[in-house]
C-alpha cells in the first residue's frame, strides 16, 4: 500500500547523468492550512508539484445514514454540522425539503427571518474564508480583523437563537424563534459599522502587491471546467459565469429583494484565477449587507412558523432542493416513504465538487500555490465528508 494507502506512481528523471526522483509528501490530515481534516498526497519534484491527490473521509460522520434513524425534526441539529462554518443555509435546506414533501407553506415573516439568518451566516462564512486565505498566504493580521467582525455576528446570532456556531434556528415550517426586541437596531448598527470595514480590508490586503502576485494567474479554472466539475457559488462565479441560485432559481423571498451578483472579471490576471474567487467573496459580503437591510425594512408581522405535526409524516415521494449556501448551490435530494423517518437524504455540497478539481488543477503548480488554491476554493472538510 505504501504511504498513500493507494498506489502513487513515482517517476525517476535522468538529467545528464544525475538522476532525481519525485518526492511523495503527505500534506497530512493534520496541517495548519488544509481547512479541516483533509489530506493531499503530493508528488513533487522539489517545489513544483506533479500532482496533488486529495484523500478525504477523515471527517465522515455518516450524517446521511443518521437522517434515516432520527426522524424529520430530529435531523435538524445534524444539518448544522454538515457545514458548521455556514450553518443556517444547511438548516434551510432540510427545512425546505420537509416543506416541499409535506406541502407546507412557511409564513412570510418566517421566510424573512430565514433570509436574514442565512445572509448573516453568509457574511460569517465569507469572513472566515477571506481571513483564512490571507493567513495562509502569510498575512496574519487580516485574519484577526475578520474574526473581530465575526464576533459581532456571533453575538447577534447568539441573541437570536442561543448558539454561536451550530444554530439549529430553522424548523420545518418556519424558524424556531422570532427576532428578539431590539435585535433589529443592533443588526442595523452592525451593518452600518461593517460595510466600510470591507473597504478597509481591501485596502489592507486585497490589492497588496505581494498578495496579488501570489494569487493572480494561479490555478485558472475555465468556465467549461467549472461546469463540468459542477463547481458552484463563488468558485463558479469567479470563473465568469453569472449564476446564483437566489437569482436564477429563486426560492423563499429572494424575488422581492434587490441585490447584485458579483462575478470574477480577471482584474489581476486571467478570469477564473484565485484572485477572482477571492474578490467575489469580498463583494458578496457587501451584497449580503444590502439584503439584510432590505429584509429588516420590509419584514411583515405575523407568525414565524406554520403548524407542523410533531410526528411529521410527509407523503411518499422525492424532492430535489437547491439553495445558495455560502459555498454555493447546495443540493438536497430527499426521499420520503410516508413514515416519520426520512428514507434517504443525499446532500451534494459545493466543497465536494471543488476538491475534486484539485487533482487536475495541481499539475505543475508549486506547493505554496496549492495552499492558495485550497483557500481560494473555500473548502471546508465537514461539507466534503459529511
Amino acid at each position: 500500500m505504501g504511504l498513500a494507502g493507494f498506489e502513487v506512481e513515482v517517476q525517476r528523471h535522468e538529467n545528464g547523468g544525475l538522476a532525481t526522483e519525485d518526492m511523495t509528501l503527505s500534506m497530512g490530515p493534520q496541517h495548519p492550512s488544509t481547512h479541516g481534516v483533509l489530506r493531499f498526497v503530493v508528488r513533487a519534484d522539489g517545489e513544483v508539484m506533479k500532482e496533488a491527490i486529495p484523500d478525504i473521509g477523515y471527517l465522515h460522520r455518516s450524517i446521511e445514514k443518521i437522517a434515516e434513524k432520527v426522524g424529520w425534526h430530529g435531523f435538524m441539529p445534524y444539518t448544522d454540522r454538515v457545514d458548521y462554518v455556514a450553518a443556517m443555509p444547511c438548516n434551510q435546506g432540510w427545512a425546505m425539503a420537509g416543506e416541499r414533501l409535506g406541502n407546507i407553506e412557511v409564513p412570510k415573516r418566517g421566510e424573512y427571518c430565514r433570509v436574514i439568518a442565512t445572509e448573516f451566516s453568509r457574511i460569517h462564512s465569507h469572513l472566515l474564508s477571506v481571513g483564512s486565505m490571507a493567513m495562509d498566504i502569510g498575512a496574519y493580521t487580516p485574519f484577526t480583523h475578520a474574526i473581530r467582525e465575526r464576533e459581532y455576528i456571533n453575538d447577534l446570532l447568539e441573541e437570536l437563537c442561543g448558539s454561536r456556531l451550530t444554530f439549529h434556528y430553522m424548523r420545518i415550517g418556519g424558524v424556531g424563534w422570532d427576532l428578539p426586541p431590539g435585535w433589529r437596531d443592533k443588526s442595523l448598527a452592525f451593518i452600518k459599522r461593517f460595510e466600510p470595514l470591507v473597504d478597509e480590508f481591501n485596502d489592507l490586503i486585497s490589492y497588496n502587491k505581494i498578495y496579488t502576485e501570489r494569487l493572480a494567474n494561479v490555478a485558472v479554472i475555465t468556465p467549461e471546467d467549472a461546469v463540468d466539475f459542477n463547481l458552484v457559488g463563488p468558485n463558479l462565479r469567479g470563473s465568469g459565469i453569472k449564476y446564483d441560485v437566489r437569482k436564477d432559481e429563486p426560492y423563499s423571498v429572494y424575488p422581492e429583494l434587490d441585490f447584485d451578483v458579483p462575478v470574477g472579471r480577471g482584474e489581476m490576471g486571467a478570469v477564473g484565477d484565485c484572485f477572482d474567487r477571492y474578490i467575489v467573496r469580498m463583494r458578496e459580503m457587501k451584497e449580503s449587507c444590502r439584503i439584510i437591510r432590505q429584509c429588516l425594512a420590509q419584514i411583515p408581522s405575523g407568525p414565524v412558523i406554520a403548524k407542523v405535526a410533531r410526528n411529521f409524516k410527509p407523503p411518499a415521494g422525492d424532492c430535489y432542493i437547491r439553495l445558495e449556501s455560502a459555498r454555493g448551490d447546495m443540493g438536497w435530494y430527499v426521499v420520503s416513504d410516508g413514515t416519520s423517518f426520512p428514507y434517504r437524504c443525499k446532500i451534494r455540497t459545493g466543497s465536494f465538487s471543488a476538491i475534486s478539481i484539485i487533482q487536475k488543477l495541481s499539475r505543475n503548480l508549486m506547493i505554496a500555490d496549492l495552499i492558495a488554491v485550497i483557500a481560494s476554493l473555500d473548502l471546508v472538510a465537514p461539507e466534503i465528508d459529511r
Partner: protein
Amino acid sequence: MARPERFGRGSRLNANEIHARLRARFGDAIGDLAGARRDNFCATVAPASIADVCRFAKDDPELAFDCLSNLSGVDYPKRGVIEIVYNLYSYRHRHLFALKVGAPRDNPVVPTVSCVWAHADWQEREAFDLLGVTFTDHPDLRRILMPEDWPGHPLRKDFVEPEEYHGISTSRESLLKA
C-alpha cells in the same frame, strides 16, 4: 459552450418536452414520465443505455444538460433495486430533469457517466463506497469516504456494523448503566 459571462436565457423546455425528446431518440430504454413538480420530474432509464442517454442529454443543443447537479444512490430492498438518481441541470436553458436507473440489488452494475461529466467521477466513487454499485469503465473506482479495507457498504438498508475495526470496538457501553 456558451460565452463565459452569461449563458443566456436559452429556451426552457418543460418536462413533457424533455421526456418526449429523450423518448424519440431512445425509445423503450426510457420509461414513462413520473413526478409532479419541477424538481420531481423524472424518467427511468434502462441501466445499459444510461451512458448513451447522458451523452445525448449533454450534447443535444435543445436539451444541453451541461451539469450533473447530483448523483444519488438509494437502496430499495423491497423493490430489489438500488436506484441511481441523476439530477441534471442545464445552465444554458435553465431546465431541470432527473433520470433514474434501477440496478438489481444483488449485482448492481451500471455504466459510468464520468466520460460525460467530470463531476460524476467522485459521485460514482461515493455511490460505490457507500452502496456497493459498480460502475463499469470508471477510471479509478475505489473507496472515497470509508477506509480502503472497510467491510460492507454502509448506506445499504441491511448493513450491519462490524463489531470492531482494527481492534477498535465500534460499540460503546451505555453510560447510564452502573
